[in-house]
């Protein structure tokens, strides 16, 4: 379980998160909802270590940990960005296997075997040698999910997973997230889409804007 305690985050004097507390239970789906500008994405960026918090602590399975400095730790957080941020110069397969090879020191064969399993699982079979520009939005997102999963994270985070997709793809995203839950993946989903949140969430966390 991941616990956030008294997290405070300011940007140039403006407080975004103040004494924010939250628990992310294992193998469950936690959604973070709230109006735009409330700090949902900032919260996710703090959890994934892209932003340093001003104060507060992160506790993972009873041990304190610093997401902003987790380079040498075990794999903790995987992130699926709103705009996916696939690497345009690499094929689907290379997008997925790059980090496992460079960071986890997996062999080419090993990383490709693991990638293929995830590729098949997420219905991307046959797309391995395509470049990101040749994929649809939904396919790009699934590649981004596979790329994050290939690093064996303990927790997978999504930033607004429905916002860059056609509305009728929302259901597909729900199925993917619920499918990963069956595989015991702990997931955090930031969304402004209440209906989507309700459909998938075990727990809904609200982030409200702080009145200045």
């Amino acid at each position: 379980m991941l616990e956030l305690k008294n997290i405070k985050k300011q940007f140039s004097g403006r407080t975004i998160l103040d004494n924010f507390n939250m628990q992310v239970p294992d193998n469950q789906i936690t959604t973070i909802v709230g109006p735009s500008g409330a700090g949902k994405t900032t919260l996710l960026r703090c959890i994934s270590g892209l932003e340093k918090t001003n104060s507060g602590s992160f506790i993972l399975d009873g041990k304190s940990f610093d997401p902003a400095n987790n380079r040498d730790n075990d794999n903790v957080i995987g992130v699926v960005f709103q705009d996916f941020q696939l690497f345009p110069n690499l094929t689907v397969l290379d997008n997925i296997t790059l980090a496992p090879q460079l960071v986890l020191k997996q062999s080419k064969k090993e990383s490709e075997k693991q990638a293929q399993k995830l590729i098949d699982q997420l219905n991307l079979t046959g797309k391995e040698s395509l470049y990101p520009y040749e994929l649809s939005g939904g396919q790009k997102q699934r590649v981004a999910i596979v790329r994050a999963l290939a690093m064996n994270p303990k927790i997978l985070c999504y930033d607004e997973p429905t916002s860059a997709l056609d509305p009728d793809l929302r259901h597909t995203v729900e199925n993917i997230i619920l499918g990963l839950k069956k595989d015991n993946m702990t997931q955090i989903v930031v969304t402004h889409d209440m209906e989507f949140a309700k459909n998938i969430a075990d727990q809904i966390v609200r982030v409200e804007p702080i009145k200045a």
Partner: protein
Amino acid sequence: MLHYVSEILPSLLSGAWMTINIFFWTLIASIPLGILGSLGLTSKIAPLRWILKFYVWLMRGTPLLLQLIFVFYGLPIVGIIFQRYDAALFAFILNYTAYFAEIFRGGFQAIDPGQFESARVLRLTRGQTLIKIVIPQVVKIVVPSIGNETINLIKDSSLVYVIGLGDLLRAGNVATARDVTLLPLVLVGIIYLLMTAVATFVLRKVEQHYRAWR
């Protein structure tokens, strides 16, 4: 006429060889240096940025001809003595590195910061991110501008005459003055055209290589 051409061709080709040498080594050195320079120009360390900005301003703000003269005739005053050829290379590399640094800076700034973040959450190091992800994208963006400078470099190399090096244009000039005919200079023009044609062809191949992805 053919007889005359075959008579002057060896000296023109030896001049062309000097041109190619200057061209090749300048390119080999100043492209990587330009990448490093562009990283410095976008660095978080302010003094490093200032120094590099000054350097770029100096190199782009004064004629290459003047820089050649300063390197060869000026630096010995402060005890730095170059042979003619080394002086030419040094001045060309300094000058072209500045242009390439500016081109690469533009390329780096065109990269979505999300690419760095996405590499970061995958726990790639900064070096891995640059080499595997960012630099290939930057190169794709800058190839046309680098190509322009590359073609310019072939012709700029003729400036080395000012410090007494015998390049292609000088060889043609010498023959023209001696034999009172423009024919050597026509040949010089043709040889330059051939060299730029080769460079254009190679650049097109590079662009095609990077067209595999968008």
